[in-house]
């Protein structure tokens, strides 16, 4: 069986059996068989499905995407009405999924980091509170948490008729949170441009400040200066634009509050549910990341006379990031995928819209194939970004 049998120098010509006994030939053979089986199974599924659909006279194909959707969607980031096509409806769903996932990722990172650090606090109460938070929300299934928040939000706030107004113009109701928005004006475009310029300036200053600190050891207050530049530039743009003050203020008209912008209870329920659930995992990732940094690093920072809070930000967290980023990527992917549970509480995410689409058109396989590939794409994009980020962080190693 061993290679030596087939070693070069053998006089007799090789038979088929000899070939089959060759490890390398076998390895290739097995792989060909494996691939063949996979292709066969795939072909079987596809052809069988097509035959069955044909037999039941169910139409197939993606032509339905151009048809008029004729159902309404409650919240949309692009122009959508019942006259729009199914393709537009799916785009609305996709954008809603992306919106809730992105916000969820940002919020859960912030909250999770805070709780992760709090878990290691020297203060007994802070430490225990953080532990209780993590243990409670980590151990309840996320779907139940969504139901919980969706039951709480409409019941916790009053009917729009007697809306609760904590700030002038901000209304809390059982239909969600209404906020005033400025009426569209050219000044806001100008302010946007100013903000971009400010960001570029801050980036350059940061680069310069780092170089200076590396060379001379002189720190530069980038954060303070940067904030100043940002606010200053945007404010100047606002004044140049004519300082518009018109606001679209929400107020009760008929049954509902009209005007302003609305954050729906469905969106809030999904966002809070996903954020809270995922933040507990992020907290654990952050905690383990910090603990993975050798204690000597703390002591070294101490001996250099660096404040504990500065040591955490400048010494410990950057090192723990390297440990934390890969598991963090997993949590972000989980959050994005869990956002598909939004369908249970009526948030019009991709799954919700796809479900309606497949039901109105009967194109179940097509609709599912669309949203599965979109989720796959979203997850791969997230992974790519995080891998890039991971590499960037790893390079900083000294």
């Amino acid at each position: 069986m061993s290679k030596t049998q087939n070693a070069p120098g053998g006089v007799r010509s090789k038979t088929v059996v000899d070939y089959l006994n060759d490890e390398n030939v076998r390895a290739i053979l097995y792989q060909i068989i494996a691939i063949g089986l996979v292709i066969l199974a795939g072909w079987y599924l596809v052809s069988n499905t097509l035959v069955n659909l044909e037999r039941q006279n169910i139409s197939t194909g993606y032509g339905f995407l151009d048809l008029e959707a004729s159902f309404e969607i409650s919240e949309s980031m692009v122009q959508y009405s019942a006259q729009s096509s199914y393709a537009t409806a799916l785009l609305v769903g996709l954008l809603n999924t992306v919106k809730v996932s992105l916000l969820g990722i940002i919020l859960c990172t912030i909250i999770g980091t805070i709780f992760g650090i709090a878990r290691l606090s020297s203060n007994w109460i802070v430490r225990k509170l953080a532990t209780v938070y993590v243990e409670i929300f980590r151990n309840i299934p996320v779907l139940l948490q969504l139901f919980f928040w969706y039951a709480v939000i409409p019941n916790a706030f009053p009917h729009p008729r007697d809306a609760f107004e904590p700030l002038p113009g901000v209304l809390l109701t059982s239909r969600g949170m209404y906020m005033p928005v400025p009426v569209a004006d050219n000044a806001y475009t100008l302010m946007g441009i100013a903000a971009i310029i400010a960001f570029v300036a801050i980036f350059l200053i940061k680069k310069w400040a780092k170089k200076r600190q590396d060379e001379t050891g002189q720190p530069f207050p980038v954060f303070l200066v940067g904030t100043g530049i940002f606010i200053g530039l945007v404010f100047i743009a606002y004044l140049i634009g004519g300082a518009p003050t018109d606001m679209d203020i929400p107020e009760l008209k008929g049954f509902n509050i009209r005007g302003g912008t609305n954050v729906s209870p469905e969106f809030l329920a999904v966002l809070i549910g996903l954020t809270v659930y995922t933040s507990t995992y992020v907290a654990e990732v952050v905690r383990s990341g910090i603990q993975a940094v050798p204690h000597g690093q703390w002591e070294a920072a101490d001996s250099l006379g660096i404040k504990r809070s500065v040591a955490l930000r400048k010494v410990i967290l950057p090192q723990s990031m390297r440990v934390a980023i890969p598991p963090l990527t997993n949590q972000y992917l989980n959050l994005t995928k869990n956002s598909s549970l939004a369908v249970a509480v009526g948030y019009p995410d991709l799954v919700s819209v796809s479900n309606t689409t497949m039901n109105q058109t009967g194109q179940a396989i097509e609709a599912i194939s669309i949203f599965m590939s979109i989720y796959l794409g979203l997850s791969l994009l997230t992974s790519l970004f995080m891998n890039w980020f991971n590499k960037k962080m790893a390079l900083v190693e000294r």
Partner: protein
Amino acid sequence: MKIKTILAAGAMSVAAIAANNAQAGAVLDGIKAKGFVQCGVNTGLPGFSAANAEGKWEGIDVDVCRGIAAALLGDANKVQYTPLTAAQRFTALQSGEIDILSRNTTATLTRDVKLGLTFLGINYYDGQGFLIPKALGVSSATELDGATVCVEPGTTTELNLADYFRAKGMSFEPVVIENINEATAAFFSGRCDVYTTDASGLASIRTTMAPNPDDYMILPEIISKEPLGPAVAQGDEQWADIGRWALAAMLEAEEYGVTSANVDEMKSSTNPGIQRLLGVSPGMGEALGLDEEWAYRIIKQVGNYGESYEKNVTAKLGVERGLNALWTDGGLQYAWPVR
């Protein structure tokens, strides 16, 4: 040796796959083999299909499945139920998970043609309405501009709603929740001003789910036609025929005044129509591929259409016959003759 085993296994799986592809067509054979009808019903809509306190399914939609089981298998209890949401129902039928869908489903062209369904008839003529809290102070659907509306996704209701508001030049904000219990809970908690579905469903929700039914009212406007009926997947015509005529037999029994109580006496009736229906003069059962007592068993075990309606809809929801009265009483229910 090892390789031979693997190759043999591979060849066998290919053979198995090829054999499987040859596909059984007959739903009917499947039902006879397993001995019961798999019936897709609503997850809980009292009057149409809902499990009672003992966990037994009852309702006018459930009676359709029971009638078919009585005709085909001889026993109305040989039915197993699959509760389905509006969004799940067609996939369940297309995939063969259920044999028949009897779940207050509106017959439309798209569903009949593009989804590959066959509707067997109409067991309830309905129309879409609006349920509102009386406190809203509205007396007509035309005053609903700007309202928030709770609606189940994947229904004709959802489409009619958009059509109606569009036609009237009004706006609304939909809240779309798949599970009927979650959706009604959202409505009763004040998330929506209006709940919309078929009028019968609204009556069911108002009487059985509202904290206090007197605080809610159904607006007078009916904005759509909703002919509700059982459906089967295309491809097994005999199975569709049995379902279609089981439904017709229940209606015709009511027209003839044959009830579960008097069906035995009616066997000696001299009316040739009744004789044909009850199999006294043979031929109908044979034509369907059943025995001659098929309709007799439906009426004996389940009752005629009127009995089913009384027992389920009138008694539970307080909804009168209206459009669902027999044509002879000014309604739309008109059985195809069993002859």
